[in-house]
């Protein structure tokens, strides 16, 4: 974690009269910048916002999209919302794990891909849905998922 960059993020989120301290917004900015919220960021965030460290740690542990460790170069999220489940997304996931030799929340040995589950991406009418980084793919078949995985290096 680059200290200067952390300081820049914290400066942007300094509480003012108009904008009270907001732990989640600050941590989301850190997640966006560093790809995760390093444990070493908790104390500086607490100091900058004038809140207890426990509050910051509590927010980090609460939200699924605040990661505590770095993830792979790409994140593949498989939708397990019911509309996708009805169209076979749990089976896609079950096949994916042995193929990549990792479980949910884990990263491939080459650091290329992390897989996560997500409960609904609002893409229910064209499921099953897979999201890689910011890009959504609908009506995903086994074969498409296999080639999709290969296309992200």
């Amino acid at each position, binding site marked *: 974690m680059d200290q200067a960059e952390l300081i820049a993020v914290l400066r942007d989120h300094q509480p003012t009269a108009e904008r009270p301290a907001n732990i989640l917004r600050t*941590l989301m900015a850190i997640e966006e910048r560093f790809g995760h919220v390093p444990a070493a960021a908790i104390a500086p965030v607490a100091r900058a916002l004038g809140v207890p460290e426990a509050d910051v740690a509590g927010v980090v542990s609460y939200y699924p999209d605040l990661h505590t460790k770095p993830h792979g170069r790409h994140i593949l999220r498989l939708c397990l919302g019911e509309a996708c489940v009805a169209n076979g997304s749990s089976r896609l996931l079950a096949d994916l794990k042995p193929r990549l030799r990792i479980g949910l929340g884990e990263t491939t040995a080459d650091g290329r891909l992390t897989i996560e589950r997500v409960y609904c991406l609002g893409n*229910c009418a064209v499921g099953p849905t897979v999201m890689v980084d910011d890009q959504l793919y609908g009506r995903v078949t086994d074969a498409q998922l296999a080639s999709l995985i290969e296309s992200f290096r």
Partner: protein
Amino acid sequence: MRNWRASSSHSDEGLAARTFDRPDAATAHDRMITIYLSNDTSARAAGADRLADAWSAAHDIRLVRTSTRGAFFLEPLVERDGPNGRLLWPRATPEDLPRIRNGVGGIEVAAVPFLAEQTRVVFAHFGEGEPLSLDQYRRHGGWRGLERAAALSPEAVIEDMKTSGLRGRGGAAFPVWQKWDIARRTAADRKYVVANADEGDAGTYCDRMIMEGEPFRLIEGMLICAKAIGADHGYTYCRWEYPAAAATMSAAIAETERVGLLNIDGRPVRLEVFRGAGSYVCGEETALLSSLEGGRGMVKVRPPYPAVAGLYGQPTVVSNVLTFGTATEILARGGAWHASLGTDRSKGTIALQLGGRIAQPGLVEIPFGATVREVLERFGGGMAEGARLKAVQVGGPLGSLFPESQLDMPLCFDAFNEAGAVLGHGGLVVFDDQTDMVDLARHYMTFTADESCGKCTPCRIGSVRARELLERIESGRGTTDDMALLSDLGETMKATSLCAHGGRAPFPVLTAIEHFPGEFTKRLGAPEHER
């Protein structure tokens, strides 16, 4: 009910294909052709971007990216202007360009039954305009609600909302006018309007469609509410899973401000998009406000209700995106007009979102009162090819499962309430006969346990224990005692949880057991003392 048994034919065949002979066909290649293609997330996920990329080099094509019609089974769909309105080419591929260019094989949008038979109010112009064009929004009737509200007193705005009979569309179905009136009457230095855009119920996407397709509609609705309660600050709490919706909303807010429309009665109103971080419970209003303040998304005991003491302790109206989106039409057309649609106690239209193993998944806006079966047959087109119906989940992960024998339920708040079910946010997910109900029940409880905020014991501990019981039953080691315990636990969670997450989570599981008991009992192992 033939539709349910047999595989239904693909939707395209049911549509009347027509050829549009362009009068200027000879010169078609010399002229620019405007092609409309949706920029909605689901249209893109279905391949719209692939078409846009493939055709970007065609010099005679002007590609306009629009909102979506919500007929997602036809996406990616391409449109052109025709003599009687738009023509569409469903499930288009890059190779279809010559046909589209020559106007061959286009279908009149007005001739698509899925669209023509709906009563669209909020979604009337979806698929026509560019989401960030204020001019087009205005041309489609936008901003009239706000203009009328501006000329009325706050009391008169709320009176109109009362006449309309509008109930919150997020799931709780609370009378909207009451919330607004309480916030209006509560004296405070600052009041807030918050749009709940944490559309977390699996199987729902109409809020996403509004934010991506007609973002100015949400802004207009929020400004009307700001006028009614006297607020000058507003937030759209948008879930993390909707990056395109958040970006479009932010751009629309900036555009509204740029043209000087972000104010009410000459008073500036500050609107902002706040992004969530993947917590389902943040769709509950008190948890949402905790999250908006930057903390853990924990549910709070009510009262006080947010309309009295909400964001930073100030009076706050938290309403669903679709609720604000409907308020614009109510102010534009009058409360009595809205009250003339729907049933006695469910006024207006319901936005149903069809998904799962259905032939024609998509958005269906119709007056309250049609039965589940009518909707699935008439709009859903029956089951997906080769599939047979097993159950329909209505109302998201906190809703209930309906077997085929119960599909004659009318879609309105009271009928669902009487049956102990909820309409939730209008999601209908269809499961086929390949569905393992024990596995599905375990899935629901895994979700509940994953997403419990942990504030109250019945939900925090109960959901984990219920998941464990279901895992045991699924593995073949469950007993009849486990079934009894599961039912008991479910009843306890219903009666004692702090919010709807724990209170409603047992419903899909218990209705699965109620309607498909055999699937559970046949998985039970021998009692321990007999092993």
